[in-house]
């Protein structure tokens, strides 16, 4: 610690400081402190001549640490850091102390204010003694972007970026992009046909010269950090030659092996070789390996698809020898748009899902009303007849602390949409069982009013059970929905033919894996946590990784699209700058001191520390591109191995110890 030469500069700020604080006395006092070689006061330190004092003293008096006592560092720390730099001194060798906002402006007693200013300067001098030069690093940004999830959010984000002529890799784990939105029949509140508005976008994604679509693929590994992520993607084998398949569907027709279709929510069958739905992108077949008898028998049985494929896309070779491929990508930013799962209502046994044929979930009902769906768009009961009365139960799995405490946001609206469709298509009596109607979006309340006009019966009350145990003649053969009508203050039993459960949107069952893959945090409700709920809603704790759509929280299509566009804008702004500046005041590990206990790794919100084995000894390392310098790890570190540059314990203790004169 030899050779510290400290310069102290006390600013008058006109009379803003000098009116209350005797700045000359403060400067004189500072001159008496150890290691202080120059101490000056000046009218306006932030002015050019004021800054020149510092620059000159660096050159002429050889000062190598600077204390400026003036206004708030939040105002002018950067100014004086730049002055130091211009004078040839590392900018981090400055300590800026606040004797205006925190002293002259808030105190009236001149003597006391002067004493306080002295104490602040004394503490700053003690602290600056320990300041070390820090290097401000920059890193380049790879302009390629990875978008994970080919639902509406992922597609929109991919298109926005690709339209800016930047390369996008769009990874989708299902055989086709489209997500949940392509399963929907119509979209509230405008009742546009979902397919009609979505398929053009899917086609655009499929053909876009700047989008490389990796469907039927999953991200396996992500390393690196903002600007330079390395990503491994597993492209799952479709057991066909994608370049040859024209999607004619003949093989599908001929294939004799069936299972319930995932896309149709199990309400229709698909084949072992299949295209999940007519407008699938990419329009190529996929083979369900577990179901394909040819593959399972090692080529001994069946082989119908090979026989009928004129394009020669399915061959014994593709069926028996194709395997997953690992694709390695390098990208500068990542947009995670992995969507949601529908809550499984069978965990609420009272509602009879899976027990009674005509108790359906929302997504199942979407398929039923869809013209391309299993019933050709007719609302039919399992026995093929039309229902005369239907109950729609809201908040299934949401607003219920036994399942999910949150409001799922879209259910009220889709519940209303169903009511409308049922009325329109069957004229059946519709009962909506709700707790509150939450119709907050553009056109939502108007839609609610419009649906009300249809004579839908709204019963305010959470349904206790759905049963087929009749107690009166008219209940026989019906499903009876039992609830308290809280507005009547009376129990009601409503016999209906069909019950639709407005199942909540919940976080993906594998959200934990996705979170740890991309370094995301999850809220208590399972969804991914944004960097700031209000002011940074698509960023995440990991710089360069953004989230959009229902993986962040349940939301409707317009909100999802807006969020996807926001995420794309974030990625584009990174690309446009081309480089990132790294925080200099970050955590650093003294490896000899570190015991590799992992407390730092555990506490860090940004996943910057990581415990690794070095020569068999566990030590923590800090990824400086991830570290924000918040200091939580240093507090958690039991051995003092971690310190935060520019905010080391030594520095702060020196400052604290000097604040009070004894």
């Amino acid at each position, binding site marked *: 610690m030899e050779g510290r030469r400290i310069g102290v500069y006390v600013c008058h700020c006109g009379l803003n400081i000098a009116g209350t604080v005797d700045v000359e006395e403060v400067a004189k006092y500072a001159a008496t402190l150890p290691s202080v070689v120059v101490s000056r006061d000046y009218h306006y330190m932030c002015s050019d001549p004021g800054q020149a004092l510092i620059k000159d003293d660096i050159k002429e008096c050889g000062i190598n640490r600077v204390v400026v006592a003036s206004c708030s560092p939040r105002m002018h720390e950067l100014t004086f850091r730049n002055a130091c730099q211009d004078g040839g001194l590392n900018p981090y060798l400055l300590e800026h102390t606040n004797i205006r906002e925190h002293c002259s402006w808030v105190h009236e007693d001149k003597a006391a204010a002067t004493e306080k200013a002295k104490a602040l300067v004394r503490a700053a001098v003690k602290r600056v003694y320990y300041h070390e030069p820090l290097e401000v690093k920059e890193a380049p940004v790879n302009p390629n972007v990875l978008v994970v999830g080919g639902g509406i959010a992922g597609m929109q984000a991919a298109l926005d970026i690709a339209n800016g002529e930047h390369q996008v890799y769009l990874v989708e784990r299902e055989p086709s992009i489209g997500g949940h939105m392509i399963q929907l029949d119509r979209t509230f509140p405008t009742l546009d046909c979902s397919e009609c508005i979505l398929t053009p976008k899917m086609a655009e994604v499929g053909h876009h010269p700047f989008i490389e679509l990796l469907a039927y693929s999953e991200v396996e590994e992500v390393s690196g950090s903002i600007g330079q992520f390395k990503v491994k993607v597993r492209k799952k084998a479709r057991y066909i030659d994608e370049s040859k398949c024209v999607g004619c569907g003949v093989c599908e027709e001929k294939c004799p092996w069936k299972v319930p279709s995932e896309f149709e929510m199990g309400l229709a069958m698909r084949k072992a070789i299949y295209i999940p739905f007519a407008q699938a992108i990419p329009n190529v077949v996929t083979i369900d390996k577990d179901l394909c008898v040819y593959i399972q028998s090692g080529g001994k049985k069946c082989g119908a698809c090979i026989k009928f494929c004129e394009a020669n896309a399915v061959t014994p070779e593709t069926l028996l020898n194709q395997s997953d491929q690992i694709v390695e990508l390098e990208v500068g930013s990542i947009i995670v748009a992995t969507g949601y799962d529908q809550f499984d209502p069978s965990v609420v046994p009272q509602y009879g899902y899976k027990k009674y044929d005509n108790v359906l979930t929302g997504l199942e009902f979407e398929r039923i009303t869809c013209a391309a769906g299993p019933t050709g768009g007719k609302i039919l009961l399992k026995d093929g007849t039309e229902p005369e*009365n239907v109950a729609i139960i809201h908040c299934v799995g949401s607003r219920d602390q036994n399942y999910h405490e949150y409001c799922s946001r879209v259910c009220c609206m889709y519940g209303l949409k169903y009511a409308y469709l049922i009325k329109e298509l069957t004229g059946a*009596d519709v*009962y909506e069982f709700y707790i509150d*109607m939450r119709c907050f979006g553009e056109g939502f309340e108007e839609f*609610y*009013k419009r649906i*009300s*006009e*249809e*004579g*839908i*019966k*709204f*019963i*305010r009350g959470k349904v206790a059970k759905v049963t087929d145990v009749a107690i*009166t003649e*008219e*209940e026989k053969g019906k499903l009876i929905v*039992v609830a308290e*009508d809280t*507005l*009547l*203050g*009376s*129990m*009601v*039993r*409503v*016999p209906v033919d069909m019950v639709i459960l407005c199942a909540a949107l919940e976080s993906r069952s594998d959200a934990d894996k996705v979170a740890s893959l991309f370094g995301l945090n999850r809220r208590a409700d399972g969804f991914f946590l944004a960097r700031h709920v209000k002011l940074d809603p698509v960023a995440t704790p990991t710089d360069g990784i953004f989230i959009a759509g229902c993986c962040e929280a349940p939301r409707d299509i317009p909100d999802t699209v807006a969020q996807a566009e926001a995420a794309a804008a974030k990625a584009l702004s990174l690309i446009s700058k081309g480089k990132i500046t790294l925080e200099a005041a970050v955590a650093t590990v003294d490896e000899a001191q570190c015991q590799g206990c992992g407390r730092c790794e555990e506490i860090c919100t940004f996943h910057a520390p990581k415990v690794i084995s070095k020569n068999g000894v566990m030590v923590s390392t800090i990824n400086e591109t991830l570290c924000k310098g918040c200091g939580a790890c240093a507090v958690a570190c039991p051995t003092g191995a971690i310190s935060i540059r520019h905010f080391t314990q030594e520095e702060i203790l020196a400052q604290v110890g000097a604040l009070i004169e004894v």
Partner: protein
Amino acid sequence: MMALIPSKEVVDVVLEAGGEPLKLCYQCGLCTATCPWNLVRSFSIRGMVHQSQLGLVDFESEDIWLCATCNTCVKRCPRGVEIIDIMRALRKVIVEMGVAKVPDALRLSAKNVSVTGNPLAELQEKRADWAKDLDVKPFIEGTELLYFPCCYPAYEPKEKGIARATVGILNEARVDFGILGVKESCCGDLVRKSGNETIFRRLAESNIKAFTENGVKRILVSSPHCYNTFKNEYPDFGGNFEVIHSTQYLLELVKEHRIEFAKELNKRVVYSDPCYLGRHNDIYDEPREVLQSIPGLELVELPDFREEALCCGGGGGRIWMETKKGERFCDLRLEQAIELGAEVLAVACPICMCMFKDSQLTVDKGESIEVKDVTELVHEAI
């Protein structure tokens, strides 16, 4: 608790009876919260609407007959639900389908209207008797204005003053007017609001016929109920006439200096807005301007007035029914007026006048205040 089973049939019946607006209700409860009944007892309109939505109405309940159709709830309803129509529909279901007992007083009055053309069971041929000693011409083709006094001023001794004052003023202003007398019947408002749609239709058709046959174009009415019915409901049955309420017409006469005040009326006066003039037809200023034009008259306002004004409790057929002491809105209103130190409670509706005059008999110091129609006050001052 017995579970109820919603009844589609009942809902359909109510809808059929004109209850269509109930579909729109989203059960916020603002109607109940604004209803004057809840000043004196508990009455859940919201609950009744919801019962109607599910076909679970308790038709035996006396609550069905409470609504005085004051329109406060309708004016405030965030969904624009025509709640009075729903009440009317429920009453209609009872009256016309006999699903429950109609209160005796209502049944009797409705019968009276049906038979005699007025609720007071007076003879039709005596309908013009109030004007016997006055210079009143029968209406003939070409007469400028028809004066339609309403059954109460026509028959009820306590209210005849309204009709007579009106005639006095019209004559003073040299207005070319006439009356139809025995050719006219009750406008039918109260019977309609109390569920007797069939009787109402008959009355409406007969009045329209009489008006049309006699070449009536412009009708001056003393009652806001007649005003509302002629203006807003008769057009549905083909009767399109220019309808003018006495307070509107008085203002016209004052402004055109067709009447001049000769005396000062040094009195402190409060004005009680009739529901059917105010909330139903947005006429708030005219009566006040007329009163203020009377020299010496000091107009003071009740605690709630104009849009917020408290109903007298007589609308919707309530005038015919007994309301328990302690639950009478008119008593509250009268007490408020006395509290304000008013010498006169001015009204512009024969129903209000009837209700308030009854109140005078039971309310403490009820006799300390006069109840007068605006017309009467004007007549006194000219």
